[in-house]
């Protein structure tokens, strides 16, 4: 049989949230890109909860959007309930979240991919990677096909050697009803990659016709829903509510009675799962003093009655799941459409990656998403976008895109992954960001769209809209800095928490006449109210920038430095940080180690961090 040959610049394997953003970014930067998926009907599938965003995750979606990514626009189009979380806290904590119509989301994403120039969507199952001299040159697919390319981005999610557990029953597959791939794991191991296993889980889904919603608490969306995307003017679609119920002692008793049949407790699963997303059996065991845990019943779409039971992820056997659900108020007669399950899968510890997400041992090979030990659609999509961009930049021989920790949650995410690695599935929290006040959802565009414009990720429409917005912000500042009130500027006056643009309008007709967008007004308000802290954090960053800017040569030999402690030598040669800032964040590295490195690196590069001796 003749082997079919295909030529591309960049291949993306897997069309989940990471793969879609990777492929779109790559194509938008002009690379001839192919997106390969085992099943074209599952593009952009939401394997677990039907929601996008949340605290810290919502900020990531905003960042993806600011860089011209697709996630924000798709959820704005297909969302069925929008809420701004943490509204009671300061603006830095405000986090958008939305329930999605799962199927609509998938189709919208697929449609956008189909429409994208330079991008080809292909249904293929990958068999192996083609490597020549530690460099990837293509991949082999099932059915005698070979794809040649200069770079390959693997976004295989939970599909590597995936095993699903429902009680004692085990099935191969990365998502209910779907398959798995063994050959990719084996290829990776042969190439010298280390692989480890994680576990995650998902709850059962119910038929809404059989739920007694009158016994549950209604949780509506926001009255004035705010879109994720800078490009969405307003959200006009009707919103659907979620419903709140809870477990009780009876449910807990059912679980305790059957713990010996729970794969997490019987020893059937021994890989690590996320602590922030424990199964209901875990909650009952670890927090035995609680007599109730809340459950959110979330609709999976407008054209389905399927409901997702957020809060009771489980891998208990089917009969126990039935018993458990029927003991819950409002769910006494509920029918389970899909049982909850746990899934174990291979991931590649991300310390094997450069901050560009290219692997250290195989040139041109990139990993993004759950294969790196993360969880979450948003975390995956963000990595996909960055990997896509960097793969193209490398082909173009341009400087890579490495976002700093003070620039974006995406910077925090990738720096954490490649510097510290993961010991449980990694999810973003705002507490992971040192400069939380700077990384707000409201300023994501101002932080990142200029970068998107420079790289060519952002289309003309967004660029001009952004420029107008930025001008509005500057106009706003100009006015409040110029006009005086009570012996100070209006800007000073605005620092008081109770003062906003409306207050200022009453004071000055010029403010009333000021014609700038409400988004720009809000931006100025927030920046002014946080000004003191923003200045302080900016000063801290400037201090660190010096060390951060000291690059470590790629071939630097830590083992050859006698002054470094042995522990430091070993850790640093494993992580191979790109600069001294990153080196300092490697666990167990002391300031003394950094001082030693400064001396050696300085000597190598003849690089002076000081502007001394003019």
């Amino acid at each position, binding site marked *: 049989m003749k082997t079919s040959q295909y030529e591309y610049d960049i291949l993306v394997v897997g069309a989940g949230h990471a793969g879609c953003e990777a492929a779109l970014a790559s194509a938008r930067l002009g690379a001839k890109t192919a997106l390969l998926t085992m099943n074209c009907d599952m593009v952009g599938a939401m394997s677990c909860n039907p929601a996008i965003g949340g605290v*810290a995750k919502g900020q990531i979606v905003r960042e993806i959007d600011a860089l011209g990514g697709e996630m924000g626009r798709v959820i704005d189009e297909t969302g069925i309930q929008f809420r701004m979380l943490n509204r009671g806290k300061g603006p830095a904590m405000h986090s958008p979240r939305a329930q999605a119509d799962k199927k609509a989301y998938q189709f919208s994403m697929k449609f956008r991919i189909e429409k994208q120039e330079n991008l080809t969507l292909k249904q293929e199952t990958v068999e192996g990677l083609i490597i020549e001299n530690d460099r990837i040159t293509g991949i082999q697919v099932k059915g005698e096909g070979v794809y040649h390319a200069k770079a390959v981005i693997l976004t295989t999610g939970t599909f590597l050697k995936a095993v699903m557990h429902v009680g004692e029953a085990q099935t191969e597959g990365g998502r209910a009803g779907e398959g798995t791939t063994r050959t990719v794991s084996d290829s990776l191991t042969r190439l010298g990659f280390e692989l480890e296993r994680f576990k995650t889980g998902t709850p059962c889904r119910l038929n809404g016709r059989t739920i007694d919603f009158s016994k549950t608490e209604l949780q509506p969306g926001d009255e004035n829903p705010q879109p994720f995307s800078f490009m969405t003017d307003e959200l006009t679609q009707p919103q659907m509510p979620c419903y709140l119920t809870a477990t009780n002692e009876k449910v807990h008793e059912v679980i305790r009675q059957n713990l010996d049949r729970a794969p997490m407790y019987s020893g059937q699963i021994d890989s690590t799962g996320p602590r*922030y997303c424990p199964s209901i059996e875990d909650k009952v065991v670890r927090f035995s003093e609680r007599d109730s845990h809340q459950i959110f019943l979330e609709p999976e779409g407008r054209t389905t009655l399927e409901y997702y039971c957020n809060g009771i992820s489980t891998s208990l056997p089917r009969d126990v799941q039935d018993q458990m659900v029927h003991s819950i108020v409002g769910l006494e007669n509920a029918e389970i459409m899909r049982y909850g399950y746990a899934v174990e899968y291979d991931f590649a510890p991300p310390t094997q990656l450069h901050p560009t997400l290219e692997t250290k041992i195989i040139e041109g090979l990139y990993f993004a998403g759950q294969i790196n030990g993360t969880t979450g659609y948003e975390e995956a999509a963000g990595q996909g976008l960055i990997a896509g961009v960097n793969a193209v930049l490398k082909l173009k021989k341009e400087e890579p895109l490495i976002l700093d920790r003070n620039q974006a949650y995406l910077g925090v995410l990738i720096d954490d992954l490649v510097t510290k690695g993961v010991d449980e599935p990694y999810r973003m929290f705002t*507490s992971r960001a040192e400069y*939380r006040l700077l990384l707000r959802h409201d300023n994501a565009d101002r932080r990142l769209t200029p970068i998107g414009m420079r790289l060519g990720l952002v289309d003309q429409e967004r660029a001009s809209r952004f420029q107008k917005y930025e001008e509005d912000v500057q106009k706003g500042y100009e006015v409040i800095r110029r006009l005086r009130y009570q012996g100070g500027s209006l800007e000073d006056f605005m620092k008081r928490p109770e003062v906003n643009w409306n207050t200022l309008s009453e004071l000055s007709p010029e403010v009333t006449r000021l014609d700038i967008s409400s988004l720009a007004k809000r931006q100025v308000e927030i920046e002014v109210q946080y000004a003191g802290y923003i200045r302080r954090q900016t000063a801290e960053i400037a*201090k660190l920038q*010096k060390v951060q800017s000291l690059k470590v040569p790629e071939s630097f030999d830590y083992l050859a430095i006698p002054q470094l402690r042995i522990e430091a030598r070993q850790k640093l040669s494993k992580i191979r940080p790109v600069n001294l800032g990153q080196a300092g964040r490697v666990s167990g590295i002391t300031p003394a180690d950094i*001082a*030693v490195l400064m001396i050696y690196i*300085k000597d190598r590069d003849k690089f002076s961090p000081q502007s001394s*001796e003019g």
Partner: protein
Amino acid sequence: MNLDLDDTITALSSPPGAAQRGIIRISGASTFEILSRLFEPDNKEKWNSVKRASQHTGVLNLSEPVLEIPVSIMLWKENRSYTGQPMAEIQMIGSPPLLEAVLTTLHRHSVRPARPGEFTLRSFLSGRIDLVQAEAVIGVIDANTQNELKEALTQLAGGLSGNLIEIQQSMIHLLADLEAGLDFVEEDIEFVSQSEFQDRLISCSDVLKDLLQDARNRNISTGQQKVVIAGLPNAGKSSLFNALSQNESAIVTEQAGTTRDYLSTFISCHGIPIELIDTAGWENEEKSIMKIAQHLREEQIKQADLVVWCSATDLLSHEKEMNLKLIEELKKQNQSILYIQTKSDLASGTVPLEFCICKVSTKNKQEMESLLKNISTSLGNEEIIHRQMTGMTASRCQESLEQAINAIDQAVSGSRNFAGDEILAIEVRSALDHLGAILGSVYTDDILDRIFSKFCIGK
């Protein structure tokens, strides 16, 4: 990570032991600006105008205690210094308490205590010294840093170092509670109230303030050796103390908190800076052996680097017995002890005490000289160098404690003024960072661990 090359830093740089003249070094961008605020030069015009390296005499105004001292400052206003940055050397009388007062004043004006080797590092980075020289210095520092920190911590907090760790723990818990409220708003968990938040912070801050006060009282930061003169009543301690303090480099200061029972003075003994402590104050109390033995177990004695035990030549036989019992008591504390026979001028006819290393009469110059020599030998030179390095570490630790207290106070006042939790978290984090400089860093993972073990997270 505090390795910012632009920070203005300071450290004592005169060689350990040389008490005749002390040198304090300052390096960094704001050297001139800060010194201009503190220093009144005899020739103001020269101070302001001369750009090249130059020497200036004048008066330095200290803030704590408020004091004016004559100094001479070598100033490199621009960059042609050892570190390649603006730099200055304050040359002054080598009295440890004065040196410390100068350092404290500089710290008040945001001059940061230098990390070990930081001057060398800057010097290397600016091309002033070569790799080999830099390596030699950094190598030593790297080996010493960890031990030193440990030792400084013991000194700093004495038996209270456990408290410091406890405070760090409770701050971690507090931050975790705060962060849980920020990151897991949708969860069904109880968040910490503002009044509870304030109470918990204030109790942390109170303990830290006590520790800091305690550390200052110990006067540890200049690294002088503590020598305690002890013995039975009428053993001639006070005469000895007075005779020794007539040494010309002595500056008598009273130490807060210890004045009731102790007299102390600073002397230079064969080039070693010494804090000499007289226990004569005990004698105003009841003279029972029990009481004296109890005194021997006090902090002041425990912290001594050397106890000079005075046994009078004219001891009566029951006193001899008492003397031996007290010596046994002292030995239990693993103290380094120098036994001397006092009032040797009364020795006519009595048998010399065989366990005493030397005879001393305050009237005999030669014997006094030999006593000083014995003290300096007992203290040992190597120990002193080590002590002084530890002293510098301890001064950095005190600085960190102060910063931590400031941050906590900021958090409390922020909370009282209804600042958001995201703002309070910045202050609590900052306090933890400063404590981390003493106890080892706290990472986000520590906070998350705490959150996940305390709260049932998982919507």
